[in-house]
Structures are given as structure tokens and as C-alpha cells.
């Protein structure tokens, strides 16, 4: 049986991969996908700690995190569509000026 530390290390690795995606990629959709990777890494931490403490609270927090992730994906993708209509580009560097 793997210990709590193993799950936490795996979660840390996944979170770092997600943050690397946000740092390195220049595609708005891939950046949103990297944010989803980070949210899932945190979910894994919540479930592992909940299992360790013997409570269901961790899983309920995961339920709320998933709800927020769904709302974030809906609004974020709507913003991406609106930006793409204006510039025909998904490169975040083409949106440096704060005017249309």
C-alpha cells in the first residue's frame, strides 16, 4: 500500500507539469488545459488527505473544485472565442494592448 507521501509527491509532480504548461505554451487553449491539470493535482491531494484523516470532507471539497473548474472552463472558453473573433489568433502575445 503506497503511503500518503507517495500520493503527495505524485500530486506535486502533476502540479509542476501544469505550471510548466502555463509558463511555456503560447496557445490559450493549452494554457487552460494546463490549469485543469493543476486543479486535478490539487484534487488528488484533497482525496489523499481525506483518506488519511478518515473523513469524507476531502471528497466534498473535490466536488466543489470540480464545479468551479466547470464554471471556469465555460467562462474561459467563451473569452477565448470572443478574443479569437477579434484577432484570428490564439497566441496570448497578440493580446498585449488592452484595447480592441
Amino acid at each position, binding site marked *: 500500500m503506497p503511503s500518503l507521501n507517495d500520493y503527495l509527491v505524485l500530486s506535486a509532480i502533476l502540479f509542476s507539469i501544469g505550471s510548466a504548461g502555463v509558463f511555456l505554451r503560447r496557445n490559450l487553449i493549452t494554457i487552460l488545459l494546463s490549469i485543469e491539470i493543476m486543479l486535478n493535482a490539487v484534487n488528488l491531494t484533497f*482525496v489523499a488527505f481525506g483518506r488519511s484523516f478518515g473523513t469524507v470532507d476531502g471528497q466534498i471539497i473535490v466536488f466543489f473544485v470540480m464545479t468551479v473548474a466547470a464554471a471556469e472552463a465555460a467562462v474561459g472558453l467563451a473569452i477565448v472565442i470572443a478574443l479569437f473573433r477579434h484577432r484570428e489568433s490564439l497566441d496570448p502575445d497578440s493580446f498585449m494592448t488592452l484595447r480592441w
Partner: protein
Amino acid sequence: MTLFYVFGAVAVTASLLVIAQRNPIHSVLLLIASFGALSGLYVTLDAPFVAVIQIIVYAGAIMVLFLFVVMLLNASQETTEEDLERRGAPGSPAATPGLKVFGALLALALVVELVWALTRASVGGDFGEGSVSSVAAIGRTLFTDYAFPFEVTSVLILVAMVGAVVLARRGTPGDA
């Protein structure tokens, strides 16, 4: 024990490939594979409810939304540095390779730091026996202790839905 390593290896590999792909559709499909592996990890943690929700909501709904937007926008390839140079675009900050190396180093520093801290901390240790996480227990706690956050969640989803419709709507002919 072996299940943990199999699912963990699949999740890490698929997540790395998500970052490495140029085509967003491949990224989305690989992320679904990563979520499947995470769902298996939840089963090894005695959390079947979260595992099922992960498959249905994340892989089934959110990722399909991403896939739909990728196909709607039809922008399959990311612009590379060579494209920018050929087009003669003004030097944007992230187009310089130095900053990209800096970002990679920051991510590497983050993983080294987190793993170093977690291996030294020795939190918890092995899991105790006996799981409490039946679906009935989750439902009871969700609708008693967490009833108010649950109701606030419905307002959040309503706001997100209205916001998405307003943001993605085509402007009226007058103000476009």
C-alpha cells in the same frame, strides 16, 4: 502498490505529452487519458464517488467542451518562433528563447522544491484501515454540514452560464 505506480506513470506521461503537443486536439485527448488514470488513483484511495464523477464530469463534459471549442475555432497549429520571424512580427516577449528557458527552469525548480519538501516532511505515513467514504456518507455530509456551500454552487453555475452566453454572443450589428 503496483496499481499506484501504473496509474501514476500513465497520469504523469499523459500530462507531459499534453504540454508537448502542438495540436490542441491531441492535447485534449491526452488529457482525457490522464483523467482516466487519476480516476483509477481515486479508486485506490477508496473514493469511488470521486472516481465516477471524474470520468462523467471531467472527461465527459468539460473535456468535450474543450474539444468543441478547438474544433469551432479551427486553429490547429500553434505559431512557432520560425513563423514569427518569417512574418517579421515585432519581438514579443515570449518569442525570445531566453524567457522560455527561464520558464522551464522555474517549473523545474518548483518540482524539485516540492518533492524535496514532501520527502522531508513525513506527513501521515501509511493509511489507516477501514474507509468511511460510502456514497451515503458523502451525501449526508454534503446536505447537512455543507448545505450552504452547495446552494452557493448553484448560483455560481448560473452566473457562469449567463456570463458565457454574454461573452460568446456575437455583437449586435449596431455596436460591432
